[in-house]
């Protein structure tokens, strides 16, 4: 495949490393400061020389941010010196689950957005005061990926990733 002059000749490994760090700069549009990597959206990175394919999986297939995330990814990856072109694909499988969130992502959601994950036993911990007195309120919240709960101890609405 022909190389364009301004693209660095780089090993596959170097290209992948550059792509990985570029992906860390792409935030979910609804959670500024939370990268799509921490959110667990990145499933695979394939390289063929300096041409890159990034495979993403959506939290929910009806998510309104998909086109925006794809164009943000393309832009960030193509800014890498090692990359000539980037194709973004939304993969039908695997299915996203909250288990894909990184620990850093989970902490950021709790601290910055008052959004928590459900524990394995189904209970919830309030990200504001740490109490267990959190009860579910409604299945639907402002977005498809969250439900709404209420902390009876510090009296704050809490959102739950689902």
């Amino acid at each position, binding site marked *: 495949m022909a190389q364009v002059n301004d693209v660095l000749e780089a090993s596959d490994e170097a290209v992948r490393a550059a792509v990985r760090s570029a992906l860390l700069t792409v935030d979910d549009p609804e959670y500024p400061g939370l990268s799509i990597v921490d959110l667990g959206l990145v499933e695979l990175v394939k390289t063929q020389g300096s041409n890159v394919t990034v495979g993403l999986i959506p939290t929910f297939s*009806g998510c309104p941010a998909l*086109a925006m995330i794809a164009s943000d990814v393309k832009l960030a990856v193509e800014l890498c010196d090692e990359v000539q072109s980037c194709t973004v694909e939304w993969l039908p499988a695997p299915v996203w689950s909250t288990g894909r969130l990184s620990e850093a992502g989970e902490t950021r959601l709790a601290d910055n957005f008052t959004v928590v994950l459900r524990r394995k036993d189904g209970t919830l911990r309030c990200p*504001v005061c740490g109490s267990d007195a959190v009860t579910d309120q409604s299945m639907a919240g*402002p*977005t498809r990926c969250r439900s709404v709960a209420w902390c009876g101890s510090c009296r*704050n609405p809490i*959102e739950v990733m689902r």
Partner: protein
Amino acid sequence: MRTWSDLEQFEAFLEDGGMVEPNDDMPDEYRQEVFRFIEFHANSEMMGGLTERDWIPKAPGLRLKQIFLSKTQDEIGHAHLLYMVAADMGVKSRTEILEDLFDGRSRFHNVFHYKAVTWADQIAIAFLVDAAAFASQRAVFAECTYGPYKRVLKRIVSEEGFHMRHGEEMVLRLTQGTTTQRKMFQEALDRWWWPSVQLFGPDSPPNDNLLRWKIKSERNEVLRHAFVQKYVPLLRGYGFEIPDDDLRFEDGQWLTGEIDWEPLKATMRNGGPDSRRRIETAATNWSDTAWVRQSLDAALTRRSAA
């Protein structure tokens, strides 16, 4: 629970950057003022969401339908969270808040008292109204001494920022469109420019409790001025005309002609051009869904009896 011996001590606490929490024994004046503010915000999200819902079937193309569907869920979801915070303050119950809204006894943002005539209006709303609302919410979030409201605002502001990107994208598409499409947008702009500017409200009174208690962080006129500085050049840059004959550029800034506040006052009395229809639609929506609430209540009663 924290208590303050008097208003002066409470204000010193706020001045020091203190944050009020629901379990605190806050002064009643503060509680009432914050409640009214959140109620107004929640009602605006609710009425805004219902307006956007009307356009889901009319949105051209699946992608835009998906966006409007999600925006509707966002706004109603924001209202839901805000109503939880407001009702918890003990001034009115959630049902009382909603019934006051649907009976026309409450206020909500001026921009939801006008008719959206064409699809281009919806784009002008996404571009201008959402931006104005975003700017004013961000200014509330910047200080906001009431903890639960600030936490909800954090998510609302993030999501509204995302809506703005959709608005920009839709305007860019239309500006690159046909002459008819550009004309449609100009007509929509003629309808929505002034309501968007007026959304910020008249100049803040000299002794504004909302500012003193750091619910708001910025005076209305400052936010309005910043909005004009950003959107006049942007819209002119896209080749559109601002419907203001007295608009001028002086000493490096854009100044609007004199603002007629009568239309805003009319909307605050629910006497805007489309107020009645909008409130009636919302009220019908509320009564049509009563059976859902009754069924849920009945199920809950049965479950607790078992």
